[in-house]
């Protein structure tokens, strides 16, 4: 039905409605510029809102993975350093044992060597007791607990039973499933006991003037176990590095996706705001001109 007659009430109502609509648009655009977001309520973009919430949860997960892999990498770094020290200790012990087995040491040298081996035993024990942020690296990362390896200077010391710490392996979560975990600890009893026993045996050999040739095999075995574990630590460290890189890439991707879903395009928003302001001014001007044009203004009563 064509409308060819317009009542005054209709004209004012139409003007009011259009002005209100433009003002609402200006309010929304101003809100977008102020918040930097395309929408602040789910009904403004239900799909985008759902995506933003999902991306937020995903980013939170990824942040957790990043922190965990960083922590794991730090722990493995400390382990690698300690195992490197332990390896060097064992190499030195083997040198001493070889010298003694060759019969090239004097009695005084043997005494000095015995003292050095005891020092190596103390050093390896100290290495086994390495702490990181108050946590025992070779005893399940237990916190604020006594040293897991007994003091070799203690009465009745036996390297075979020196370990009294936690044998719990400590893993960290680096992925969304319970299978995606990386062990970041090394059981001290498994990696150091052979080496400690070999050192204690060598020390006894030197003390009793025995032949150290019999200790060489055990020393080599202890060194090999340390070396093997160090290799394992390196591999796990590399795994964490790879995961960290992967997570960083994912974080970047998800952040970009969330930004696309949520963030306002300031250029187009400001442009739209300018258009809306211009339209409002034009509407008000046109309205004032139209509504002022009345027969009453032209008649002389």
């Amino acid at each position: 039905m064509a409308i060819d007659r317009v009542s005054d009430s209709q004209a004012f109502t139409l003007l009011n409605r259009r002005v209100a609509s433009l003002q609402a648009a200006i309010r929304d655009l101003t809100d977008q510029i102020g918040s930097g977001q395309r929408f602040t309520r789910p009904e403004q973009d239900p799909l985008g809102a759902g995506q933003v919430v999902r991306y937020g949860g995903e980013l939170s997960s990824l942040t957790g993975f990043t922190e965990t892999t960083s922590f794991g990498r730090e722990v493995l770094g400390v382990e690698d350093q300690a195992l490197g020290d332990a390896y060097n200790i064992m190499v030195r012990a083997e040198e001493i044992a070889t010298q003694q087995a060759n019969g090239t040491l004097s009695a005084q040298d043997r005494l000095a060597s015995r003292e050095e081996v005891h020092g190596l035993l103390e050093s390896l024990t100290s290495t086994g007791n390495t702490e990181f942020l108050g946590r025992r690296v070779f005893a399940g990362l237990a916190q604020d607990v006594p040293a897991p390896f007994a003091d070799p200077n203690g009465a009745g010391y036996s390297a075979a039973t020196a370990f009294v710490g936690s044998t719990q392996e400590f893993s960290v979560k680096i992925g969304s499933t319970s299978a995606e975990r990386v062990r970041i600890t090394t059981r001290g009893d498994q990696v150091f006991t052979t080496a400690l026993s070999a050192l204690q045996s060598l020390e006894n050999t030197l003390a009793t003037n025995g032949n150290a040739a019999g200790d060489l095999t055990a020393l080599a075995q202890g060194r090999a176990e340390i070396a093997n574990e160090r290799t394992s630590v390196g591999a796990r460290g590399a795994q964490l590095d790879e995961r960290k890189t992967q997570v960083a890439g994912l974080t970047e991707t998800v952040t970009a996706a969330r930004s696309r879903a949520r963030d306002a395009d300031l250029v187009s928003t400001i442009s739209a705001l300018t258009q809306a302001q211009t339209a409002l001014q034009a509407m008000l001007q046109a309205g004032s001109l139209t509504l002022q044009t009345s027969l009453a203004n032209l008649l002389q009563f």
Partner: protein
Amino acid sequence: MAITPALDIGKRGLLAQEAALGVVGNNIANVNTPGYTRQVAEFAQDPSITLPGGALAGAGVHIADIRQIIDPLVTRRLQASLTTTGERDAVRDQLERLSGILNDLNQPSLSDNLAKFFDAADALARTPQGLTERQTLLGAAQAVAVELNRRSSDLAALQADLDTRIVDRAAAANDDLKRIAALDTAIVAHEASGSHANDLRDQRQEVLNDLAKAIGVNVLANPDGSLRVDAAGGGLTLVDKGVVVNQIATRADPGNPAALVGNSLHQLGLVNTQGTFLTVDAAFSTGELAGLLQVRDGSTVTASQHLDTLANTLITTVNTIQTDPSALDLDGNSTGAPAVPFFSGTTAGTIAVGITDPRKIAAALSAQAGDNQNALRLADLRQTIQGPLGTTFDGYLALETGRIGGDASLAADSASAAQLLTTQLTAQREGLSGVNLNEELTNLLRFQRAFQASARVISTGNAILDDLMRLL
């Protein structure tokens, strides 16, 4: 033809134009009156008089009627459109409130709090013996519980408010029925003399429109000018011939399964003249009351149920891990037997953190110092698909955000569509029945000129009489 009839014709012309000027003045005065229907004076010739010789001569003019310019079809369509608009506006407004309560886009939000809870679980898995990490986890859990409590409480408050609105709107609609009956009585009395009670009809139409926003109605005109107003759904008569036959009523409905905790809802119905409460759900299937009912008993309840499902799943899964038979707290004590649940409660409204001592959090599954196996299981919950939710916690919140936003958006679109139709029909109605000042001013001039001409007829007749008098 004698001069005296000419004077009479002039006089009647003056009276008729004066009356028409009055109609124009009334139109101008009511230019801003809501629901006013413009009126026009309908002129009619007075019965002719027979001149000597038998010729018929005109005897002047009179106002036969003052008629409203109205299209009943547009009025009926507008009334129906108002019902749809009332319903959809109500749904839109209330769903926007619902969306505001459950909005996860602003900070702090439930998704944000839940993320912090799982972040804290991650930190605990890294440092299972850390008291700081344990305390942080409890704090984050507390924030989740408080947010769930707030949402649950706000949903219940929204439902209670909707119930109050329903009761108030029903009372207002009931007042409309009484006013329609009273106006019907006045119109019938006024129009018994043969004239049209235009202003009363306008008032009645305004009240009818207000009633139509609240509840769908069918209106039939009785021959005496009164109306019969039936509920569009159910067909029961509400008003007929100036009598309220069935009133809109509310009564307490303690058995309503939709009532959220702490709420007592009301049932809508009709009460007949004998005072019997009639349950006529169909009568409230359209209009604002229907929209309010829809959100009160539908959307709000669904949102509450989904929130409870989320809360219950969180409580159950976390407590299952915390009270695992092998789970141990920081002091090596079992948290499985006797059970030391992490959360208490079963719903969003009742969830609370059940432990206050951070040492009671079971991060270990063995007595070995530093064991983090149980903390890892807790951290795993973030990415685990939960059976009752069909997805992860984050996924569920995203789904809920999208669902609620979608519902509110759809309601807004529906309301806009209904509003557009109402606007078009209002424009049609205004185009026909509204007052245009320029038109009225033109009519003013027209009737003023006619008035002046009639006066000139009288003055001319008077001059002729003067001339005659001077001959004497």
